[in-house]
């Protein structure tokens, strides 16, 4: 029966091509706009940590003074990071920040590159599930006994060593030799959840060096450096002992129980710091947030995007009302034919289904066309605004989502007209000519 209805629907659509086109256009434009904004929204609001989201936790400390910031800062001070590393509660943990270093190779003709470098601990790679192509992270011992070792990513390995296994080779960062211990596979979570301080939709760093080298090499911070206290920071040791927030701190716990245990540990840490005159604010506290909470706290999805999604849903609603009106007019015009069908044995349900199939077909067409619009507008926007590719690819799920929303929306719009036409008294139209 479904194919019979489909055949009837197709005839009906062909019979009024202009009107059908109008309806398909209306719904496709609504879908196009909605999918465009929804696509960006979805990519922004994705939680790339997946099932590890509940294990990984960002750490925040309310270390600022009485009248300083009114909320937790996203980063911690170096001295706190240094102290937190001593906790043996979490399974893994890492302190980190981004620096920039001049990169050279043993080739004297190689023109130096300024690359951003993530300064972090060996646990980083396990915690954030970084896949390795060759080698592995530096040994845990390096986190305390600094060594000049580096992990590079696949891209850089291709660029410098044409993709060969480069473990054991030497790189120069600010003219210091570093030994390559690992090459990661292409890997760049989006949003870059573990460090959203300077924008959540950037590529991950190409190089990683041990955090333990920071006080020795005096790496500059390329991230946000936020001070609440007026204190002189004219050299690196002043920076390390300052109250400036510039280090990100993450821990991995096994389960909620261990998380609570760690939170307890942090509370004791805050109390202990208060004894030596830090954490002066009455609100001084510590906070751990899993990845999902972290993305929320840091407002990774910008307000604009939420407004756009909201408005585009309203837009879709207008398109549906539009379609509803046209459908109603179209269906009611067909009342005599429906009367005949009812008389010769079609039940209400069958008439209803026939019309819903027609509406669904229009919705399906609108969905496909809408997908095309969305693809077009995303490509246009990304070309015009030079957007991060991570935000403008049409997500694969949209190939399902778009037609589904379209059909669903069309069916909703079709219910009333289809109900009207199937519930009119068949005898009313049989006599009249």
């Amino acid at each position, binding site marked *: *029966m479904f194919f*019979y209805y489909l055949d009837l629907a197709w*005839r*009906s659509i062909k*019979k009024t091509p202009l009107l059908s086109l109008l309806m398909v256009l209306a719904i496709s434009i609504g879908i196009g706009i909605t999918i465009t904004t929804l696509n960006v929204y979805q990519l922004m609001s994705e939680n790339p940590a997946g099932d590890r989201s509940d294990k990984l936790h960002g750490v925040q400390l309310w270390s600022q003074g009485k009248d300083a910031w009114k909320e937790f800062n996203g980063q911690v001070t170096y001295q706190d990071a240094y102290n937190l590393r001593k906790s043996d509660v979490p399974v893994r943990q890492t302190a980190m920040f981004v620096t920039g270093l001049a990169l050279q190779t043993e080739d004297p003709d190689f023109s130096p590159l300024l690359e951003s470098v993530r300064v972090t601990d060996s646990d980083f790679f396990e915690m954030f599930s970084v896949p390795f192509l060759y080698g592995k992270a530096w040994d845990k011992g390096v986190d305390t006994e600094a060594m000049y070792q580096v992990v590079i990513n696949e891209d850089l390995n291709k660029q410098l060593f044409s993709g060969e296994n480069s473990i054991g080779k030497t790189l120069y960062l600010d003219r210091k030799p570093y030994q390559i211990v690992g090459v990661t596979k292409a890997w760049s979570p989006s949003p870059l959840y573990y460090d959203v301080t300077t924008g959540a939709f950037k590529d991950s760093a190409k190089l990683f060096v041990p955090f333990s080298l920071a006080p020795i090499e005096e790496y500059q911070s390329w991230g946000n450096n936020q001070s609440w206290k007026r204190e002189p920071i004219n050299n690196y040791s002043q920076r390390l002992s300052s109250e400036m927030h510039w280090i990100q701190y993450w821990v991995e716990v096994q389960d909620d129980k261990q998380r609570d245990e760690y939170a307890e540990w942090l509370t004791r840490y805050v109390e202990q710091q208060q004894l030596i005159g830090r954490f002066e604010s009455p609100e001084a506290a510590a906070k751990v947030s899993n990845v999902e909470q972290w993305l929320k706290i840091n407002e990774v999805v910008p307000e604009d995007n939420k407004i756009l999604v909201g408005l585009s849903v309203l837009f879709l609603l207008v398109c549906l009302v539009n379609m509803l009106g046209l459908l109603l007019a179209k269906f009611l015009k067909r009342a*005599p*034919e429906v*009367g*005949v*069908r*009812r*008389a*010769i*044995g*079609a*039940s*209400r*349900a*069958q008439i209803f289904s026939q019309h819903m199939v027609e509406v669904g077909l229009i919705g399906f067409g609108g969905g496909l066309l809408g997908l095309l619009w969305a693809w077009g507008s995303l490509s246009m926007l990304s070309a015009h605004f030079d957007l991060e590719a991570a935000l403008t690819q049409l997500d694969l799920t949209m190939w399902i989502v778009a037609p589904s929303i379209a059909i669903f929306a069309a069916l909703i719009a079709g219910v009333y007209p289809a109900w009207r036409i199937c519930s009119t*008294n*068949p*005898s009313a139209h*049989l*006599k*009249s*000519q």
Partner: protein
Amino acid sequence: MLSMKNISKVFKTDLVETHALRDFNLEVKEGEFVAVTGPSGSGKTTFLNIAGLLEGFTHGDYFLDGVNISNLSDNKSATIRNEKIGFIFQGFNLIPDLNLAENVEVPLRYRGFNSAERKRRVQHALEQVGLAARMKHLPSQLSGGQQQRVAIARALAGEPRFLLADEPTGNLDSMMARQVMELLEEINRAGTTIIMVTHDAELARRAQRNIQIVDGQVCDFTMYQHGAVADKPHLVAGDKRAVEPSSVEAEEATS
């Protein structure tokens, strides 16, 4: 076959109650050919709609082929319409977008026949009305008489027990009307019960039995014998405003 007892149908609007049928009683036996006449607004169409399960009724009992029709669900009554009843309308009511074969196929579709069975029945029904050769034509390409024959083929395709015809010749000239009538008679002889509403007394006389509806009630009914034609003039069919005096039929019936 068809049995109506004390059927009444009331239309209610905000102010007025209109009795379309009141205490309507009728028995039709299997294989009968019944002509229904009556003045305009007397309730003929309401009767036909109720008989054809297109409308419900307010009071009374209606049995069709042994099935109690009161309070039947929409689905059930659609099934009965589909399997047991064929409709023929004054305006033919063919679906203009469908060709002849597809028009005839419509009830078979709703019945759920497979495509081979549908094809066989469509072929057979169109052969019966002599239009099998034109099955790919659209209704608009046919004359009125041909269209009505297609409508009859559509009504026959489901092999109904029971044919309801509402002024089947009302839009046709007398030649074509006669052809259609002959077709109906042939169908009746093959065993199908027919109830036909008509204005045309001449046509009505050709039926086995005439009933007349006046003010929503069966006024009189008598077995009618072929050949006994009264020479009283009667009003022309199609003039819907005119009232045919009931005495005409009554006299004819007694002669």
